[in-house]
């Protein structure tokens, strides 16, 4: 895995690849999150953005001094001459705009601005406001020495950086304030300790006891406070009971005070030494009768008080009990105050310690560990029973619990739909929520019916306005409730958890992108290699290794072209590579494998350009050895076929010329000698010879067209004259079936620049077909010159050959223009012909930039229409017209 990641990271070399930018952004984000105080946030922003992969070389963070409107420099990179805490006065420098309206401002050329401050760079500048909770506190200034240096991607990156910095500054300020408060609180409590400490408590309790003893007229007594944790009473004041019982620990139910502490009811014991509940610890006291009462706050036990008579003559009555009860609240309050005070002090100490340790969390990337630690600290600091943290999964639109502490079950892995339960509710409303009694709350989730939870406080975790998760804390103690103070404390943790989630997400996205790219490249059947500026191989994929036979370790670091070219192809390959550093190149060439064997490849070279800067190039090689061999074979075969057809037709035509020539000549001689019977036979030989010749010519034409060897010879000719010639030539055919030929000229036909011979051949072919399939009908040749799309010089000549013959069905028309596809085999025997004429006509039309179409009604006749450009350029159709 690590080796594979290594490959992917290095696939695009140099500065600013996507993966490297993402890694830089992640470092930036982590750096900002790890900053322990506000100054560190500013340093983290500038140093994070001043990354090779991002390419920001001149930047700084200014804070607005609200008193005089100056901007005060907090941190900067690339400005060597500015002093620490440099002040830019109100009204100077373009960066003030971002502070004024709280928007990003891009100045493509600062020298054109009135506020331009010559001490900085004279290029372009981006100013991004720095905001904490919607209030602009300063500005992030990023400069370039070049004008027009920034674009949309920069705005996005800088906006994100400023936003993260804003969150971090907000959190740092909050944390700082909180630490200050904790410090103050602890100092205050320490002072109070001296004033009203435990000494004071025992003095108060002694005073209470003394007054009770004298008022009740008893011998003596005791006061104890209740230690909730150990479920014991501790005697803190003792008067005249025959011993100093201070410090005695009494279990619940033990002795008089233990009894009232358990029953929470006062108790009178007329004769202590006969009482069954007496404690062994009090066996040696000089006591006759005892009156004891619990000390409570509400129904909660805080201690106990007891008074005794040593005199057997004295006893306790209801009046004594009433008097005692007038002292108990005072004692109870004194105890409770002291307890609260101690607890508060302890909590303040814990808070301070926790806030101090929070910095340790920042920068940790393993999400579940961070969130568990954040949760545990939140639980301790808020003094709650437990809690949970969940991450929002955007794809599933659900929360997933990833950290859970002491809520009566391990809820890790639980999925919550938006609106479900406390965290689901805050994920939907995006505002914190306090639920005083969870089990009575209507929004509770069935997944939490078994938790030991009384009250709940939950808050959404946000990055800007985007939900990333939720946090919840719970009290299982019904006596505890959540208040604004708790909410304030919870908000200390929320941003940290949110940033941790966001960092983890960014990291995962970068990782995924990298893996995706890596998979794509390593599974590609195309050989891929990346090079640096000096044509050295930076990386290559397995297909490259297979194609050229070089293992990656051997290839990396070597010059590509010296590795896979021969002497003969090196200069061509180097030229490709050099060109590909500038713009994409595509071509075919021969390369050499490691074993020396040649390989024909299709090469695609692409420069790798990031942010307008070339960082290297990527080469793609596709093995086309077999393809080229197949093409060479096909070309050789085709050339042999053309050669054969050319020589064949020549060999066939020579004897044919003799047959045609001699039959014609002998016919003339025979006619002169007066032998009409023989002349008719010779005419048949002559006609058959001519037919055979036309067949051979057609086959030769078609094979030439197929081989791409039919050339066009464009010449200038008069269309009217051409029509006259064609009409004359076709005359004997017209007469044969007693047809009439009509030649129609619509308007001025003018001259054409085209292949006269081919046009004549096409028209003769169409007319000869028309004559062949029509008897005692009319064959019409119509010609017209029309302008195409109204454009001068782009005129078309339309030639239509219409007959009143047998016509065709749509099915017959479908295959009409295919070679050897006379409508039906039977027509060949009846009408003759090769079935090649229309195929040739169609091909000729296409070569000459036009087309041929047919309309026909069976039994009524057919019309073939040829459309050709009046001026056919000998060059490709899209070349400029000759003047």
């Amino acid at each position, binding site marked *: 895995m690590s080796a594979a990641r290594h490959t992917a990271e290095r696939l695009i070399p140099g500065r600013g690849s996507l993966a490297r930018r993402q890694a830089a952004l992640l470092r930036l984000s982590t750096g900002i999150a790890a900053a322990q105080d506000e100054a560190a946030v500013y340093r983290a922003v500038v140093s994070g953005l001043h990354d090779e992969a991002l390419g920001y070389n001149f930047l700084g963070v200014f804070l607005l001094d609200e008193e005089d409107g100056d901007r005060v420099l907090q941190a900067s990179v690339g400005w060597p001459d500015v002093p620490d805490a440099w002040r830019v006065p109100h009204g100077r420098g373009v960066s003030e705009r971002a502070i004024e309206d709280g928007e990003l401002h891009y100045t493509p050329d600062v020298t054109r601005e009135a506020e331009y401050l010559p001490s900085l760079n004279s290029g372009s500048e981006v100013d991004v406001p720095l905001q904490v909770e919607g209030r602009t506190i300063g500005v992030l200034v990023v400069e370039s020495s070049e004008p027009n240096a920034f674009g949309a991607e920069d705005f996005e990156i800088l906006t994100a950086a400023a936003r993260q910095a804003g969150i971090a500054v907000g959190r740092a300020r909050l944390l700082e304030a909180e630490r200050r408060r904790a410090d103050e609180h602890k100092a205050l409590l320490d002072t109070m300790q001296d004033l009203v400490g435990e000494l004071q408590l025992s003095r108060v309790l002694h005073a209470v006891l003394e007054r009770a003893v004298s008022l009740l007229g008893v011998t003596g007594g005791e006061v104890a406070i209740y230690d909730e944790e150990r479920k014991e009473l501790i005697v803190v004041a003792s008067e005249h009971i025959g011993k100093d019982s201070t410090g005695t620990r009494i279990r619940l139910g033990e002795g008089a005070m233990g009894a009232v502490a358990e029953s929470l009811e006062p108790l009178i014991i007329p004769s202590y030494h006969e009482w069954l509940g007496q404690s062994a610890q009090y066996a040696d006291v000089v006591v006759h009768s005892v009156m004891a009462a619990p000390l409570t706050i509400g129904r909660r036990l805080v201690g106990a008080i007891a008074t005794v008579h040593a005199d057997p003559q004295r006893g306790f009555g209801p009046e004594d009990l009433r008097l005692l009860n007038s002292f108990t609240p005072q004692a109870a309050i004194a105890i409770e105050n002291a307890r609260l005070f101690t607890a508060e002090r302890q909590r303040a100490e814990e808070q301070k310690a926790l806030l101090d340790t929070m910095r340790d969390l920042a920068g940790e990337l393993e999400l579940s560990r961070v969130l568990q630690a954040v949760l545990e600290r939140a639980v301790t600091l808020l003094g709650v029973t437990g809690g949970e943290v969940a991450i929002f999964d955007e794809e599933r639109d659900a929360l997933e619990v990833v950290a859970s502490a002491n809520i009566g079950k391990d809820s890790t892995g639980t999925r919550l739909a938006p609106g479900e339960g406390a965290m689901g509710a805050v994920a939907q409303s995006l505002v914190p929520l306090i639920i005083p009694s969870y089990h009575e709350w209507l929004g509770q989730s069935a997944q939490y019916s078994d938790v030991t939870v009384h009250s709940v406080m939950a808050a959404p975790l946000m990055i800007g306005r985007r939900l990333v998760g939720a946090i919840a804390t719970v009290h299982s103690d019904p006596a505890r409730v959540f208040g604004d103070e708790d909410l304030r404390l919870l908000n200390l943790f929320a941003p940290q958890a949110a940033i941790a989630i966001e960092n983890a997400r960014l990291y995962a996205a970068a990782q995924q992108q990298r893996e995706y790219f890596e998979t794509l490249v390593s599974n590609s059947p195309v050989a891929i290699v990346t090079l640096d500026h000096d044509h050295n191989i930076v990386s290559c994929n397995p297909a490259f290794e297979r194609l050229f036979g070089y293992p990656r370790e051997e290839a990396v670091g070597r010059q590509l072209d010296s590795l896979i070219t021969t002497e003969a192809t090196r200069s061509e390959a180097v030229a490709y590579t050099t060109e590909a550093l500038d713009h994409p190149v595509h071509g075919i060439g021969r390369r050499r494998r490691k074993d020396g064997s040649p390989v024909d490849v299709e090469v695609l070279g692409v420069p790798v350009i990031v942010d307008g800067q070339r960082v290297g190039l990527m080469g793609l090689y596709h093995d086309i050895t077999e393809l080229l061999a197949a093409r060479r074979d096909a070309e050789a075969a085709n050339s042999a076929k053309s050669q054969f057809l050319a020589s064949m*037709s020549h060999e066939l035509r020579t004897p044919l010329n003799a047959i*045609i*020539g*001699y039959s014609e000549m002998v016919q003339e001689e025979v006619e002169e000698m007066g032998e009409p019977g023989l002349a008719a036979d010779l005419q048949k030989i002559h006609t058959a010879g001519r037919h055979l010749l036309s067949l051979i010519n057609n086959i030769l034409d078609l094979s030439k067209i197929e081989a791409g060897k039919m*050339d066009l010879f464009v010449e200038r000719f008069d269309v009217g004259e051409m029509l006259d010639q064609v009409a004359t030539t076709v005359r004997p055919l017209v007469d044969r079936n007693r047809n009439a030929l009509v030649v129609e000229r619509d308007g001025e036909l003018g001259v054409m620049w085209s292949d*006269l011979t*081919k046009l004549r051949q096409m028209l003769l072919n169409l007319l000869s077909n028309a004559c062949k399939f029509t008897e005692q009908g009319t064959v019409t040749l119509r010609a017209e010159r029309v302008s195409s799309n109204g454009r001068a010089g782009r005129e078309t000549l339309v030639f239509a050959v219409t007959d009143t013959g047998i016509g065709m069905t749509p099915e017959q028309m479908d295959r009409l223009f295919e070679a050897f596809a006379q409508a039906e085999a039977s027509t060949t025997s009846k009408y003759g012909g090769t079935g090649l004429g229309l195929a040739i006509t169609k091909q000729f039309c296409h070569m000459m930039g036009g087309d041929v179409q047919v309309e026909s009604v069976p039994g009524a006749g057919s019309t073939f229409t040829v459309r050709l450009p009046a001026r056919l350029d000998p060059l490709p159709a899209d070349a400029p017209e000759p003047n």
Partner: protein
Amino acid sequence: MAKILLVEDNEMNRDMLSRRLARKGYEVAIAVDGREGVEKAKAGAYDLVLMDMSLPEIDGWEATRQLRAAAETSALPIIALTAHAMSGDRERALEAGCNDYDTKPIELDRLLSKIKALLPGAA
């Protein structure tokens, strides 16, 4: 009657065309390849040459160029005869210095009209 030199390597074509032209009253001399054609044309006083283009030794194109280059034959009318009605043959023939061209197989009437057009006094 006009004297025509027929330069043609194919015996049957030569025999046929010479006989047909003779019957139309022309005096026909024969050359069997390009070299002989050039020699005879220069030596004898012909009124017109019918030149087959695919000839052994030197071909019809080259023979025509040589005749045009020589002072005594520079104005001698030459009709090129080409095998198949190839587009461009006409241009090539005229470019090589021929006065006209016709395609094989010969249509006698057409060829005769071209011959008549080029003979002295025809215009």
